[in-house]
C-alpha cells in the first residue's frame, strides 16, 4: 500500500528512459529528410542519416539501460522532463545543420533548431534557397512536431505513458490556463488532437499543391502554417507567391485554424457547432482580427500605400492572421505600412490566439481574464461591497485562477523587458532588441528585418542568440514549466 510513496525527489531513471523513447521517435522523423536528400540526389543525406543513427542509438541506450526501479512520476518529473525534452530535441536536431553542405555555426544551429521546435520561425539563414531539400524539410518538420507538442505526440503513440505520469507531462506542455481534456484517457486525448492536426495538415498540403506551389513547397509551407511556425523554403518567404490570391487565402484560413483551440475544432468536427458559438475566446479572437483589419486598412490608406483592392483586404488580413497566430509569414510591403501598424503588431504578438492551439503569445484567454478582472476592479472603486466574478464561456472563474493568470502576464512582461535589456548589452539597437525579445518570447518570429536591422537574426551576436533561444523555450512552455525549475523549492524536499 505504501509502495507508491516516493523515495526520491525526482525519478531520474524513469525520466532517462522516457527520454530514450522520445529520442527514438525523433530519429524516426529524421529519416524523412534523409530519404528526401537521397531522392533529390543531394549529399546532405549523410549528415541526416548519421544524426538519425546517433539519435536512435542514444535513444535505445537510454530506453533500455536506465532500468528504473519505479514507474512513478510526480509533478516535478513532469516539469523537468517536458522542459528537458525540448532542449535535448534541439541539441540532436541541430546536428544536421552543422554538417550540411551550407554549415552553420553551433550557436546559429541551436537557434535555428530551437526556433523550429518552438514554432517561432525566426531564422538565421540569409539565403534559405541555398539549403538542400533535406534541410528545408527538416526545418519544416521541426515546427510541425513542436506545433502540437513533442510530449503530446509521445503520449499518443507510447501506451506506457497512459497513466498519471503522462498526465503531469501533458499539464506541463499543453498551452492554456486550464488543461481541458477532450477524452477520458490522456492517450485518447492526445490521439484525437493529433488526428485533427494531421487531417488539417493533409488538407492544407493538397490545397497548396493545387495552386502554383510544387509538392515539396506545399509540404514545407503546410507544416509551417498549421503549426504557426513560419519557416519558408524560399528566400523571399511567402512573398514569392505574392501574386497568388489563392495561396494567400488558403494560408489565411489554415493559419487561422492553427490559432483555434484544437479541442474546440474536435468538438466542431464532431458536429457540435454550438460549442463554437458559445466560446467567448473564439468570438474575441475573430473580433480582434476584424478590428485589426479595419485599423490596418486605415493606416495603409493614410500612408498612401493603396495600390489595388488586395492591398487593403487580403494583404493586411494575411499579415494580421500571420502575426496574431504567431506564424510570422510576412507580405511584401509590410515594412512600408508605417509605425502605427508596427505598434499594432506588438499588441497582436502579445495577445496571441486561443489557448490549446499551436500558436504562441500570452493567449487571448488570459487577456480576456485580465480585461474582465480590470473592469471588475474599476467597478469596485465605486461599489466596494459588490461581489463580482470573472465569467468566461458562461462559467465563473475562481479568484485563484485569475490571480494565476495575472501573475503569468506580469512575468511575461518582465521577461520581455528583461530579454530586451539583455540584448542591448550586446549593442543591439533599442527597438530591435525589444522587438526581437518580444517576437521570440511570443514564438512569432517576425524577422528583425521589419524594424530595419539586418535581414535575419543572423546579424545578432552569438550571446543574443542564446538568450533568444531561452526566451523561445520559456514562451512555448508558457513560462511556469521552465521557470519553476529555477526555483529552489523545486530541488528541495
Amino acid at each position: 500500500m505504501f509502495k507508491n510513496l516516493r523515495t526520491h525527489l525526482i525519478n531520474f531513471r524513469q525520466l532517462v528512459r522516457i527520454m530514450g523513447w522520445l529520442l527514438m521517435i525523433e530519429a524516426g522523423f529524421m529519416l524523412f529528410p534523409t530519404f528526401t536528400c537521397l531522392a533529390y540526389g543531394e549529399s546532405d543525406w549523410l549528415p541526416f542519416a548519421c544524426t538519425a543513427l546517433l539519435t536512435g542509438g542514444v535513444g535505445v541506450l537510454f530506453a533500455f539501460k536506465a532500468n528504473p526501479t519505479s514507474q512513478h512520476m510526480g509533478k516535478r518529473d513532469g516539469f523537468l522532463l517536458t522542459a528537458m525534452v525540448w532542449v535535448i530535441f534541439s541539441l540532436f536536431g541541430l546536428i544536421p545543420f552543422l554538417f550540411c553542405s551550407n554549415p552553420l555555426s553551433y550557436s546559429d544551429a541551436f537557434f535555428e533548431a530551437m526556433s523550429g521546435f518552438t514554432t517561432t520561425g525566426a531564422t538565421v539563414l540569409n539565403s534559405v534557397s541555398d539549403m538542400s531539400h533535406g534541410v528545408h524539410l527538416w526545418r519544416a518538420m521541426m515546427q510541425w512536431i513542436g506545433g502540437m507538442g513533442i510530449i503530446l505526440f509521445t503520449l499518443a503513440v507510447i501506451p506506457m505513458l497512459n497513466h498519471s505520469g503522462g498526465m503531469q507531462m501533458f499539464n506541463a506542455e499543453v498551452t492554456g490556463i486550464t488543461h481541458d481534456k477532450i477524452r477520458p484517457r490522456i492517450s485518447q486525448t492526445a490521439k484525437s488532437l493529433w488526428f485533427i492536426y494531421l487531417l488539417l495538415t493533409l488538407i492544407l498540403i493538397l490545397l497548396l499543391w493545387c495552386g502554383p506551389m510544387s509538392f515539396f513547397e506545399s509540404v514545407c509551407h503546410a507544416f509551417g502554417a498549421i503549426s504557426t511556425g513560419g519557416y519558408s523554403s524560399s528566400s523571399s518567404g511567402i512573398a514569392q507567391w505574392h501574386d497568388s490570391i489563392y495561396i494567400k487565402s488558403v494560408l489565411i484560413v489554415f493559419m487561422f485554424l492553427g490559432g483555434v483551440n484544437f479541442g474546440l475544432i474536435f468538438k466542431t468536427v464532431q458536429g457540435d457547432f454550438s460549442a463554437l458559438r458559445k466560446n467567448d475566446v473564439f468570438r474575441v479572437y475573430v473580433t480582434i482580427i476584424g478590428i485589426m483589419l479595419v485599423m490596418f486598412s486605415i493606416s495603409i490608406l493614410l500612408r498612401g500605400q493603396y495600390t489595388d483592392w488586395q492591398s487593403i483586404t487580403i494583404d493586411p488580413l494575411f499579415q494580421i492572421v500571420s502575426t496574431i497566430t504567431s506564424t510570422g509569414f510576412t507580405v511584401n510591403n509590410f515594412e512600408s505600412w508605417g509605425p502605427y501598424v508596427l505598434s499594432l503588431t506588438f499588441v497582436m504578438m502579445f495577445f496571441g490566439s486561443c489557448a490549446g492551439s499551436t500558436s504562441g503569445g500570452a493567449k487571448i484567454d488570459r487577456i480576456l481574464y485580465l480585461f474582465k478582472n480590470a473592469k471588475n476592479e474599476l467597478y469596485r472603486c465605486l461599489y466596494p461591497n459588490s461581489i463580482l466574478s470573472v465569467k468566461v464561456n458562461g462559467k465563473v472563474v475562481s479568484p485563484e485562477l485569475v490571480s494565476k493568470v495575472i501573475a503569468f502576464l506580469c512575468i511575461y512582461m518582465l521577461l520581455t523587458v528583461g530579454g530586451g535589456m539583455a540584448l542591448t548589452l550586446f549593442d543591439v539597437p533599442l527597438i530591435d532588441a525589444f522587438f526581437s525579445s518580444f517576437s521570440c518570447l511570443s514564438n512569432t518570429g517576425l524577422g528583425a528585418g521589419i524594424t530595419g536591422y539586418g535581414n535575419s537574426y543572423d546579424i545578432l551576436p552569438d550571446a543574443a542568440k542564446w538568450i533568444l533561444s531561452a526566451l523561445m523555450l520559456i514562451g512555448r512552455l508558457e513560462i511556469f514549466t521552465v521557470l519553476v525549475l529555477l526555483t529552489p523549492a523545486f530541488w528541495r524536499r
Partner: protein
Amino acid sequence: MKIVIAGAGEVGSHLAKLLSNEEQDIMLVDDNAERLAILDANYNLMTVVGSPTSFVGLREAGAGNCDLFIAVTPYETNNIVACSIAKNLGAKTTVARISTYDFMDPANESHVKRMGVDRLIYPEYLAAQEIINALKRTWVRNWFELHDGRIILAGVKLRQGAPIVGMKLKDFAFTNRNFHVSAIKRNHETIIPRGDDHIDVGDILYFTTTRDHIQELISLTGKTEQRIKRVLIMGGSKIAIRLVNLGHEEFRFKIIDNDLDNCHKLPQKCPDCEIIHGDARDTDLLADIGIADMDAFIALTDSSETNIFTCLTAKELGVKKTVADVETIQFISQAENLNIGTVVNKKLLASSTIFQLLLDADSSTAKCLALADAEVAELEARPGSKITRSAVKDLSLPRDLTLAGLIRGDEGMLITGNTVIEPGDHVLVFCLAGALHKVEKLFN
C-alpha cells in the same frame, strides 16, 4: 470500457482512481468544482462539473453511451434519480449506491428495475455480511467462497508457534497438496509469492482450498476455532442496524452508543437487542456491561481511530474476537498489523462489487472480498480465450496475478502448473491492484 461515475465523494473518488489505474475510461461528474480540479490534474480521467441529477450534467458526461454508470453521491435518492436519467439517456448498465434495505428487498426488485437501476450497491449490507462471516469463523481474517464453498479463499494471520512458520513455500506446497498459497501480505504490501519465499511470523497468508480441508488448515496455522455467542457493538450506525437484523437469530447483540437520541431510535430498528447509552471508551462502563463475558467486540463508530483503539482495549480486556470499521483507507494496513481481528471498509466493499461487475462475473454466487491493494474475482473461462490454450505453467502469466482454484462442473479443485483450464470453468483469480485489465484480456 466507458464508465461514468456520478459523485466525487469518498467512494466516488476512490473508485475513479482505482478504475483509471485499471485502464478504463473514466468520466467523473460532481457539482463541486474544486474537488474535481484536484482529481483532474493528477489522475488519468476526465471530470465534468455539473449536477449528477441533471440531464445537462449527465449528457455532458456522455452518460448516454457509457457502458457502466455508477451513482455514488451521499444520498440514495439522488443516486436513484441519477441512474434513472442515465438509463433513459441510454446507459447500458446502471449501478446505484443505496443506504437502506428497502430498495434491496426482493419484493421491490421489479420496481427498482423499472426506475432504471440495474444493480445496487449497499456497502453497509456488505459490511454486515462480512462481519457475520468473521464472527462465524474467528480464526480467519478474510473469507471468500465460491458456489457454496466448493472453493474457499481464506486469509490467516500467522502467530508465533504456528507449525508452518519458517517453511519455504515450495516445501510447504510439496507436503500439503490440498492448499494453494495465493498471496502473502507482509509489511503493508501484498505479494504473489514464489517457491523460494519464506513463511514468516506476522504474515497474512491467503490459502485457497476446498471445503473438506478446512479443519486441516486450522491446525496447520496453529489456530483454534471459537464459538461466538455474545457480541458487543460500539456505535449504533447503519452497519450496526444491518448487522443486528442479519444475525440476531444466531448471536446475542448489545449496542452501546453515546448519542441518546440515536439510542431511543435503535429499538425500533433492531429486534432482540439490548441498547445501552454510554461511551464505550470508558473502561469502567465496559466492565459494568460485562465485557469479560463477551465473545466479540465490534467497533462501528464514524471515527476510524476510535474504532481501532477501542478494539485494542477490548482485546486487552479479554475479548476473543474484535472487528473494526476503518473508513480511512490509509489506516487499514496499520490496523491489520495491530492485534485487531478483522477490518471492514465500506469503500473497498463497494469497489469490490464494481470490479465483479466489470469482469462480468456471476456475482450472484460469489461473495466479494475487499482488500486494500488486491482483488479476488471469479471468472468464467470463455471458449477460445487465451487462458484455455495451454497448461497454466506455459501461459507466461503476469507476475501480479495468480490462478488459485477452479470449479469444473460441480467439483472444486486447486490449480497447479500442469492444470489445463477448460472453457466453462469458473476460475478464482487473485490479482494485485492494477492487474485487473490483464485478467480481462486473459479470459475474453
